[in-house]
């Protein structure tokens, strides 16, 4: 890739932070631009316990997986081609994570999204980037876009906006601004009065942005595909004077339409802090008026107000067109990305039959109901378990005696339940949609030494006795002397007529 380019159609990025929406937005952009490979190579999630995990994303209407690594070191090792890191870390951890990326051998450009990074930390990152010939975009930015090639994170918002602003294919304009919000506005505005954006970068509103307006303008100047420059500066700082200098010494020759915002500061209370951290004039030189004036004198095309910016851009573009400097190109219809189901449902565009019909419980309203009876009533009126089971199994309020009977049974068998292997397997088989015979067979075939073993052994010994044609007495003696166990299947290990099961007695009493 040429050194004046940061991103092209093959650029891949590593995303620091598990940010699913920007990742999907980047992939949707890739899809409409007809990129061959997704622009996201990997995600870093330092909080995960495993070294590698995976994240599912849509690629058009197909699903693909993107690896998630615990560390940047592993990600850069596995993806040496990815030379961009988009850092979504918080303001607290943006510094160490960006530093690690700048010091790696494979990452060339670091985009820092967080706002509120200490100025000294930003300045140290700038130092490292300078020493290692790396590039920083941000902090406090949404990022930027190379139309039809590569999009950073949330830049340019929705697909609808990308199509309306013609960002799925490159135009002839190189644009750079401080403000991320304004960059998206300008992307659209420029698409309306020219053949569209080639590249648009928002450097962020901090006092010490990792790269300045001039750094990008000089790249655009060198890029032969870019025919015209547009920039939006801001009150505060002196970075715009570097542009003045470049215009004067001839390092910017392409037409530059620029406007520095913050002209209102002169009538506002002194020291008013605009929305951006860097947006405060410390001296006359830092005011918007002074900068606009200096730029105008140096040969930039500066409107009288933001109101006229679109007209100036259009005029300048039309002039280039007349001079034959704009190469016409064929428009293409970008492929449609299917809408997400949840979005389509929200808009009322799709409907879908339900997979499950439940006629018993219903949790769609404020109060969940069992067979039409609200859970609030059940609790407040202190209804019994038997009552609830009546609702769930029989869909009605059972008479008092039946409720009591169910309660007694549940209490008596509370330690038994379906958590025995045979019953469990029968249930599972039934849930799999099999017939009664198969379900029962599945339960019966589970019988083994730890479940239903007595029956199994009974069958074994009675069969043996039958085959050997033993008499009952021979059989009893055989079991006593040779097998040395009680005859299985006869009697209960504990309960007997003399020692009756109290559970049975209690049930009998109730009846």
């Amino acid at each position, binding site marked *: 890739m040429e050194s004046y380019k940061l991103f092209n159609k093959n650029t891949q990025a590593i995303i620091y932070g598990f940010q699913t*929406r920007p990742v999907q937005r980047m992939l949707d952009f890739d899809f409409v631009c007809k990129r061959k490979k997704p622009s996201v190579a990997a995600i870093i999630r330092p909080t995960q316990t495993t070294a590698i995990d995976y994240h599912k994303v849509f690629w058009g209407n197909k699903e693909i997986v993107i690896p998630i690594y615990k560390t940047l070191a592993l990600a850069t090792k596995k993806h040496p081609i990815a030379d961009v890191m988009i850092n979504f870390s918080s*303001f*607290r951890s943006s510094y160490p994570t960006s530093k690690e990326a700048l010091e790696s051998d494979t990452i060339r450009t670091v985009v820092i999204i967080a*706002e*509120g*990074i*200490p*100025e*000294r930390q930003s*300045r140290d990152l*700038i*130092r490292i980037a300078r020493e290692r010939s790396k590039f920083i975009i941000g902090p406090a930015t*949404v990022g930027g876009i190379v139309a039809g090639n590569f999009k950073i994170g*949330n*830049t*340019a*918002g*929705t697909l609808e*906006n990308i199509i309306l602003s013609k960002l799925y294919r490159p135009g002839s304009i190189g644009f750079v*601004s*401080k*403000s*991320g*919000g*304004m960059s*998206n*506005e*300008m*992307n659209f*505005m420029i698409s*309306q009065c020219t053949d569209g954006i080639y590249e648009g970068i928002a450097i962020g*509103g901090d*006092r*010490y942005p990792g790269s300045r307006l001039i750094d990008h303008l000089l790249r655009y100047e060198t890029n032969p595909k870019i025919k015209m420059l547009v920039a*939006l500066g*801001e*009150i505060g700082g002196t970075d715009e004077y570097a542009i003045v200098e470049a215009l004067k010494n001839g390092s910017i020759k392409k037409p530059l339409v620029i406007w520095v*915002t*913050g*002209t*209102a500061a*002169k*009538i*506002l209370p002194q*020291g*008013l*802090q*605009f*929305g*951006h*951290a*860097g*947006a*405060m004039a410390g001296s006359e030189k830092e005011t*918007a008026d002074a900068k606009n004036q200096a730029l105008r004198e140096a040969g930039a095309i500066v409107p*009288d*107000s*933001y*109101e006229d910016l*679109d007209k100036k851009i259009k005029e300048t573009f039309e002039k280039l067109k007349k001079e034959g400097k704009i190469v016409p190109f064929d428009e293409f219809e970008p492929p449609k990305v299917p809408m997400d189901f949840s979005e389509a449902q929200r808009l009322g565009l799709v409907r879908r039959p339900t997979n499950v019909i439940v006629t018993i419980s219903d949790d769609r309203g404020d109060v969940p109901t069992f067979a039409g009876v609200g859970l609030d009533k059940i609790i407040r009126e202190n209804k019994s378990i038997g009552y609830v089971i009546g609702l769930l199994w029989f869909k009605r309020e059972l008479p008092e005696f039946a409720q009591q009977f169910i309660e007694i049974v549940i209490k008596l068998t509370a330690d038994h339940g379906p958590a025995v292997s045979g019953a469990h397997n029968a249930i599972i088989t039934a849930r799999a949609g099999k017939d009664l015979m198969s379900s029962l067979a599945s339960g019966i075939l589970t019988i083994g030494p730890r479940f239903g073993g007595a029956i199994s052994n009974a069958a074994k010994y009675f069969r043996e006795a039958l085959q050997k044609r033993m008499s009952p007495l021979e059989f009893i003696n055989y079991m006593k002397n040779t097998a040395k166990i009680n005859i299985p299947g006869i009697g209960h290990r504990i309960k007997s007529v003399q020692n009756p099961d109290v559970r049975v007695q209690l049930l009998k009493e109730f009846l």
Partner: protein
Amino acid sequence: MAQKNIYEYDAKKLIASQLPNYFPEFNYHEKLAVITPEKLANFDRFVAENPWLKTDKLVAKPDQLFGKRGKANLILLDANLEQLKKFAEEKLDQQIIIGNVKGVLNRLLIEPYIPHEAEYYISITSDRYNDIIHFSFEGGIFVEENWDKVIHISIPFEKNIESFDLETKLPNLGKFNDVLIPFIKGLFQVYCAQDFAFLEINPFAITEDKKIVPLDLKARLDDTAAFLHMDTWGNPNNPIEFPIGIGQKLAKEEALIKDLDEKTGASLKFQILNRDGQIWTMVAGGGASVVYTDTIVDLGYGDDLGNYGEYSGNPSREHTEIYAQNIIDLISTNPDPQGREKYLIIGGGIANFTDVKATFTGIVSAIRKSANKLKNAKVKIFVRRGGPNEKQGLELMKQVGKETGVPIEVYDRYTHMTRVVSIALNKNLKR
């Protein structure tokens, strides 16, 4: 989230606590007190807490972020306790005018009076690649007219000041050289280590026994670095105060939004410029809000502008509603005394990811609740916005206008962002 001024008292305390780490010879007297109207009311206790007030000769001066205090006759020099009390009684709670701002004096910084001959100037500033030391023999009130005599020494960011050859770049101070160089190097290290953004000691004196005494001091900290300084000025239980300038009091409406802003990851900013203003703005985006304000001023309506503010970073529906309600209350509580119309511009560019429908749902809810108030105050609303779910968001605005009868004009992305300003004002407000 930026560079913030701190009180001279706090700045001196911070430097006094940190400077000995790098310059152990800095033997500060630690005698520093602030008197406020409340403390003056309990003057005996104030003196008991600061016993040196009884024994030392004293200096007192306002500590409210403004300079030129001598010229305004607000400095007391070489005084005893009785004179101090009289001075405080005279000056505290008095209205003063600084430049074109009126304010009430409510903080006096008191220090021992230290007789000295020469006054020196030092300040430290920063740019992208350097921290810069500015030094002059001609300190005090003369430094501005003698700015050409100030020596500027840029220390590249990556350089270590301890091994930096400062000696050959500074003029010879004779017998004071051996304290001055380590003092400057120490001060520089405090500046860097504590994330100062600006520090000026003008003047400082050196006593005969080679003690360095900072006299007047101004400082700004980078408040985004607070989390790095939990052990000093960023202690969350006792954070350093970032005062606003004298005469600039946070109105309750501004305080409400500031409080909200601190609770969310989104950004909510609000400042009242003119309560009687006819034009109010509710603009999305740090950049766009500046552009709208510029345009109103450029078109000549600056004096009628009610506020500056912005909301961005996808604030929740609820927070946007509170924000909108706040503006609606301000604009509609007092109709214009001459019965003129008022204009609310709900503007913004094309958002990257702020959900237009969600935020507009909040605004619409506030409009609906206050429809009668808005109509009584003759408020006309002009909307321009784009971004995720823009169609539904703009539709909500049109609907609420129809439903409530509040006049609302709605424009989408195809209308130039700020044109809504000229549409709103040029048609209605004749100059």
